[in-house]
């Protein structure tokens, strides 16, 4: 049972647990026991754990609220980013025209667009949605373009020899062939989406993971802020783990080449 494969599968979670416990121990030692740093900014576990207890309802509600913003925004970004990426990527002349524009827009922090989003979008919620959508769209689009450009010539030859065209070409060859890059783009987009969540939830939100942290930071309730940050990190790790599992499944073939 203790094959090398099983051992290496356990290695990640176990070492993670050890490191987290160690860091938590050090933090507790420094704050609760030795009381070295500023107690307002660095509350000890003695304050954080009760704060978690009283916050749990709010945290769960925040999770639901954040996910109901994140999931549609990210889904929309992936759908439009991937389809636009494939549409443009398969048309080299169009791509040559558009690439400078895409390069120009890609690094713009979508936080800058908040006033515009609020002005243009009908509701606060849709403004928040737009901020996340916009931030995630570009890494997905750019990576999809990259993935299409990096399709191996032999796959294209093969597709041409089979006279694959249109929808079949896209769904049987281009999309799966570009999938490793698409996943890299979604990965980058997801990370961006978590960063943007805090900002997006500043717009008219009454709940959310980002909102929670922001709200208590404004009142200098740092025990609650730390609870919120730990909760957010936990959620991020959970979502990214799910994402990795999905990636492993979809990109199974890349390991077997």
């Amino acid at each position, binding site marked *: 049972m203790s094959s090398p494969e099983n051992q290496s599968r356990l290695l990640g979670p176990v070492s993670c647990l050890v490191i987290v416990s160690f860091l938590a121990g050090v933090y507790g030692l420094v704050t609760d026991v030795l009381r070295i740093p500023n107690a307002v900014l660095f509350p000890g576990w003695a304050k954080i754990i009760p704060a978690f207890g009283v916050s749990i309802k709010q945290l769960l509600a925040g999770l639901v609220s954040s996910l109901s913003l994140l999931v549609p925004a990210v889904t929309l970004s992936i759908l439009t980013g991937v389809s636009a990426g494939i549409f443009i990527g398969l048309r080299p002349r169009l791509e040559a025209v558009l690439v400078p524009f895409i390069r120009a827009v890609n690094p713009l922090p979508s936080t800058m667009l908040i006033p515009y989003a609020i002005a243009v979008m009908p509701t606060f919620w849709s403004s928040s949605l737009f901020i996340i959508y916009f931030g995630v769209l570009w890494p997905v689009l750019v990576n999809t373009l990259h993935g299409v450009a990096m399709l191996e010539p*032999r*796959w294209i*030859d093969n597709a041409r020899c089979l006279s694959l065209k249109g929808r079949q070409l896209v769904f049987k060859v281009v999309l799966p062939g570009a999938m490793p890059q698409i996943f890299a783009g979604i990965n980058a987009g997801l990370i961006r989406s978590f960063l943007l969540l805090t900002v997006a939830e500043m717009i008219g939100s009454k709940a959310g993971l980002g909102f929670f942290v922001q709200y208590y930071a404004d009142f200098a309730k740092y025990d609650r802020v730390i609870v919120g940050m730990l909760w957010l990190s936990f959620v991020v790790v959970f979502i990214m783990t799910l994402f990795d599992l999905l990636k492993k499944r979809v990109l199974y*073939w890349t390991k077997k080449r």
Partner: protein
Amino acid sequence: MPSPYLTVEGVTFSYDQGQVILRDINLAIARGEFVAVIGPSGCGKSTLLRLMAGLALPRIGRLTVAGQAIAGPGLDRAVVFQDYSLFPWMTCRDNIVLALERAKIGATVAARRKVALDFLDLVGLAQDGDKLPGELSGGMRQRTAIARALAINAPILLMDEPFGALDEITRARQQDLLLELWQGGQGEAEAGKTVFFVTHDVEEAVILGDRVIVMGTHPGRIVRDLPVSLPRPRSRMGSLRHQNFSVLRETLLNELNLVVDERLIPHCDEGAAI
């Protein structure tokens, strides 16, 4: 000589601004003929195959199949590349099923799956249909590619060093399998498949081909067109033991040496090179 089926007429090919890859190639292949092509690397033998596949189009001249000019890839020509005829994200069976769908063979998915499995069985891979190409050995992948090429029932088979990346024993087995499959399709009312087989292995060319074309470099051109005087049906061992085999092999090796010498010593005239 039967009327040519696959022809190359005065073809010159070069990439956009680059040097001439192929110059004035003329070749006529009869229906059901197995033509092997050898030459040093850079002689344009693979390019010639790509032109036949319609993956590239000639600058000057034309290629025809049954009198029709080749304007692009088509399912009348099945192509087997060295090690990349299959999509790595599809199982072997699905690779064949997709090709069958394009070739309009089998009315339903179930029917196409059945056909795919039949052809996998033909190459001894009935058990491996659900595996990804990456889970198979190089020899098994090539057998899958051959199964796919045969399954779509194209009259022309274009093979670009299909066994080039395989170890010697595997290659020998594949050669026998190919001979068996190809000869199995010959001698019926209609002629069998016309094969254009690119290789860099002289023995392989002699074992498989009815004719061996030798190509030279700079620019790519045909320097010899040698009929293979070995009886059909053949087997690999039978051919190796045949009295004509060593003469054919020597002839081709000499021809190749001339081509290579010429390339190594470009400023010598031919007399001095020998």
